């Protein structure tokens, strides 16, 4: 699949990773090589095959909705790059 500059900018927005204009051609070329490699899958006849999303043998279950880990607010918020009074701080979002 040919990757255009527009494609790169679009996935950069989807992935929330800033890409500078002068980096776009190089990234497009790398992604194209990877896609060209994975497109070898097109040789395989997959008609009638159901997609397999997991190989787990575990059965999904509902856990008890109870507090099991108390009093670690400071440890958790302590990892934030910016915090105040036990809360995460971000720039103003709503005008």
């Amino acid at each position: 699949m040919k990757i255009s500059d527009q494609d790169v900018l679009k996935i950069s927005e989807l992935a929330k990773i800033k890409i500078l204009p002068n980096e776009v051609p190089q990234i497009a070329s790398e992604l194209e090589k990877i896609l060209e490699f994975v497109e070898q899958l097109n040789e395989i006849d997959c008609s009638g095959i159901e997609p397999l999303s997991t190989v787990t043998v575990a059965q999904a279950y509902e856990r008890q909705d109870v507090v099991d880990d108390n009093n670690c607010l400071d440890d958790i918020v302590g990892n934030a790059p910016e915090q105040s009074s036990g809360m995460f701080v971000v720039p103003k979002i709503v005008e």
Partner: protein
Amino acid sequence: MNNLTELTLSEARDLLRAKKISAAELTAAFLKRIEAKACWNAFITVTGDLALAQAKESDTRLARGEIRALEGLPIAYKDLFCTKGVRTTAGSRMLESFIPPYESGVTQRLKDSGAVMLGKTNMDEFAMGSANVNSCFGSVINPWKAKDNPAQDLVPGGSSGGSSAAVVGRLCLGATGSDTGGSVRQPAAYTGVVGIKPTYGRCSRWGMVAFASSLDQAGALAKSVKDSAIMLQVMSGYDPRDSTSANVGVPDFEKSVGQSIKGLKVGLPGGDWIDQCDDSIKTMIGNAAAWLKSAGAEALDVSMPHIKHSLEAYYIIAPAEASTNLSRYDGVRFGFRAPAESIGEIYQNTRREGLGAEVRRRILIGAYVLSAGHIEAYYQRAQKVRALIKQDFSDAFSSTDIILMPTAPSGAFAIGEKQNDPVTMYLNDIFTVPANIAGLPAISIPAGVDSRGLPLGIQLIASSFNEEALFKAGCVIESSSGFVPWREEEATS
């Protein structure tokens, strides 16, 4: 006693229990050697004080006879297992100062069994890599040197390259790793140690920094098959906090060690992907089949037409899952944050500056294959091929007990090689990825050397939850191969 760091895990265990050595002196010997070999860059964080305190507690328990499975045995943890109160980075600038408020399921089990934590080992960032050159803490150096160029620094494999270098270089008795596409087995092969990836669901993923959740599984790197069985025993078991953890019993793995393999059926998948390997690897495969036959096994050819496409399916599925898993690194709740004026810029700048080039590339690929208009052609097609690969294995296991393959297509290469384009690096994982795609247990055992005198690994793959077959057959390969373990070069001055 001299050379405490030369002991295997099981030898050290026996000496501790016989009170011939103490956990404190054993731990001190490893800490001293870690310091002396800092040039290999195998550790991101060394927890010396903590290790000595744990060793002291183990010595008290050993004296009282309250002995747990790994009492007083110093081991290392790949730096993606969250350790409560001890920095856990996943090799990324993004988590450079992250202190987990909780302990991973696997390291909790090791801790509860009395293991001493020496520190956290270096790794490719977020476990994405095959050479340990993608760490924000720098490359890891393989203690092995090629006989034709002893001055050249070689890669230790990846992504668990710090763990593999630490085990072979005698910096610990064993180490944990994680294996999403071969990240335990391939570095084990490149460094001449044993690496086991168990069945998907055998070990808890709770508290392991996630890469691709349907493929990620913890594993162990060790000096011998027996040591790997002892470690996996402790690491395995049901954990309700991981929704994919398997609620199945854990057999006594150590009991498998040394058991007869009479009548064991060994499948050999042929095909051009193996024919293209170095001659030394083809010879090793032939030898391994002969050793297993001499020990009473039967070898037969198996047809597995789709498994050579595992790597292509992997490079859709793994980036897709990574792109969703790594969306949590947004610069808000934990980890690195780049300076920015708005929330949108915080996301964009943080992820650009906090993540390395390979990680960003895989996230972009993942975003692409999951995006509207492409999801069917890429992601869903890869999932269909995944079903076909799993079926290939099911068919093969209807007539065989284990599959025999190389672990990697070559021996270790120089740091800086294979970095011109990403796909060349990805091809190192061609033989290890199939077991992840199908969720099967697999082991790598050192079994030969390449033309440069560097170690090569044999890989055995078994059906789900049949790790015991791997330990049994692995012992036969280990005792038959005549593989000469890594030795420290004498100082030449």
